[in-house]
């Protein structure tokens, strides 16, 4: 194997692939990136056995071939070589070393046999459809923050993507809050199996979608693949059953409260300075056209702030985790946040008047 490639192209390519490599992998080959040169293309692949990222870049290939080398070392080498330099690489005759040179620097990297590299990128026939990169990123972002980080509940550790009627839905929850974003069903997606996309995959995918105009999705019930013009991201989906979330969305909550989004965010941010350090609890005392947000902590300190709101029902006290309120507020774009409430112990529905396709459910704290 022998090829040359410009440093900037290789760096961009490797920056995609190497980011899935686990820093400390117990399986040696998973620390490596697979390099395959053929037809004047260099294909790099990295995986942690759950996600694989494959990037394709133009290269000048003098001899086709395939090998694997340590991903972080190669990435560091390429990163530290000067801009614009041409990098050449050649595999030794016995396949044990890859020599890499750029400018006046020369490196010799140890190789592991590419045959031992797991093939994660092959996906069986599934449902294929396309979304714009920007849209995909937006939908994922709106849902993803609510996913659970408790690794004993795998089935909540991701974003549930599924078809509901004529909508494509993205849902995540950690049991404290829930986010649901949806979009008219793209062509060809109707038979898509419901899948839970792992959090790590969602993170990688958001980066990818940001740069891509269009993303093609291949979905099976075991794996999901996202393809852009440069990169293919393949991921296992979470083996679990997502809860029947529709049943906890309080569509019937009658008490409507409209609050200026910026004022709410600022007030919560300020008041929560003196909330209980761990639970971050703040109290909303709601009265007609008047909201008081307050907090106190075990050191007997307290904070209080008043807000003008639009609300014309009975007085009510509700406790919330300030962090959850802020996170939801920050994901909205509109002037106001709409709260739909029932009482201090029931789930609260929140909506962004600018984006009525997305909804959030927030569970209060018992006061």
């Amino acid at each position, binding site marked *: 194997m022998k090829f040359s490639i410009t440093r900037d192209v290789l760096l961009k390519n490797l920056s995609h692939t190497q980011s899935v490599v686990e820093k400390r992998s117990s399986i040696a080959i998973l620390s490596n990136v697979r390099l395959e040169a053929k037809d004047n293309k260099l294909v790099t692949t990295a995986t942690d056995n759950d996600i694989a990222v494959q990037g394709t870049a133009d290269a000048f290939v003098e001899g086709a071939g395939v090998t694997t080398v340590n991903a972080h070392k190669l990435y560091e080498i390429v990163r530290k070589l000067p801009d614009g330099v041409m990098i050449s690489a050649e595999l030794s005759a016995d396949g044990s070393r890859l020599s890499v040179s750029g400018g006046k620097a020369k490196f010799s990297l140890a190789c592991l046999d590419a045959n031992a590299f797991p093939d994660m990128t092959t996906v069986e026939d599934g449902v294929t459809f396309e979304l714009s990169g920007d849209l995909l990123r937006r939908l994922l972002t709106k849902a993803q923050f609510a996913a*659970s*980080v*408790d*690794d*004993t*509940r*795998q*089935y909540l550790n991701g974003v549930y993507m599924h078809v509901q009627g004529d909508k494509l839905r993205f849902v995540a*929850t*950690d*049991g*404290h809050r*829930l986010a649901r974003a949806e979009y008219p069903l793209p062509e060809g997606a109707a038979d898509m199996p419901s899948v839970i996309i792992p959090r790590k995959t969602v993170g990688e995918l958001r980066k990818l979608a940001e740069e891509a105009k269009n993303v093609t999705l291949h979905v099976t019930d075991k794996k999901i693949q996202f393809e852009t013009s440069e990169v293919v991201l393949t991921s296992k989906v979470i083996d*679990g*059953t997502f*809860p*029947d*979330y529709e*049943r*906890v969305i309080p569509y019937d909550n009658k008490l409507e409260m409209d609050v200026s989004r910026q004022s709410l965010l600022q007030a919560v941010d300020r008041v929560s300075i003196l909330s*209980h350090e761990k*639970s971050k*609890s703040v*109290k909303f005392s709601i009265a007609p056209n008047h909201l008081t947000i307050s907090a106190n902590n075990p050191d007997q300190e307290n904070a209080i702030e008043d807000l003008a709101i639009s609300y014309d029902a009975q007085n009510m006290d509700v*406790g919330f*985790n300030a962090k959850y309120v802020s996170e939801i507020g920050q994901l909205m774009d509109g002037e106001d946040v709409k709260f739909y409430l029932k009482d201090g*112990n029931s*789930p609260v529905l929140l909506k962004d008047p600018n984006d009525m396709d997305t909804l959030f*459910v927030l*569970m*209060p*704290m*018992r*006061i």
Partner: protein
Amino acid sequence: MQQLVLSFPRKTSFEVEDYMPFTSHGSALALLAQMAQTGGMGYVYGPEGTGKSHFLHVAAGRLGLPYYTPATLPADPTRLSEAVIDDVHALDAVRQQAVFHLFNRLKEEGGVLLLGAAVPAASLTLLPDLTSRLRTLTQVEIPLPEEADLNILLAKLAYDRQLLIEPAVGKYLMTRAERSPVVIEGVLDRLDTLSLARKKGITIPMVRQVLDGAEATSCA
């Protein structure tokens, strides 16, 4: 203040692949095997939490018959034929009549009927005519599970809730909780809620808290 959690409804699978053949189901399974070969009528009873309904679903699949509960059973006897009927102790008067007629018809024509109930036929308090007929059936009990089965039951209940319970935690729970399926199920539901509220897997201290009934008051 304590974080409340969304209460997601729990789905119970009655599919045959999810059926756990507990040791305590031995005689019920033997009855089923016999009925699958030679037909006839049978009566299976046992208290709540023993997996009787799951067994009856599986039996319905094996025998190729519809499965009914008092809520789904048609009241019109002409719409009834060979069937598996659960919870016959809870049938209303109209449906008791329907089952009575069904019983007589199947007896005459030689059809398959499998009934489930919480109590032995001798303790049923249905229409006297029906009760006396049910008492003539082959009866088997699905008793409360014993030691080894209880441990499997705990694992299964946790699995059904997608909850991970480490062996040491399970062992702790089983040595301290009352050894009844209904109690264990209740404890698990509370542990599920508590661990969801804390965003942490189930630990021995959590089990202790639930068993002491103290989970609501403390917020950690």
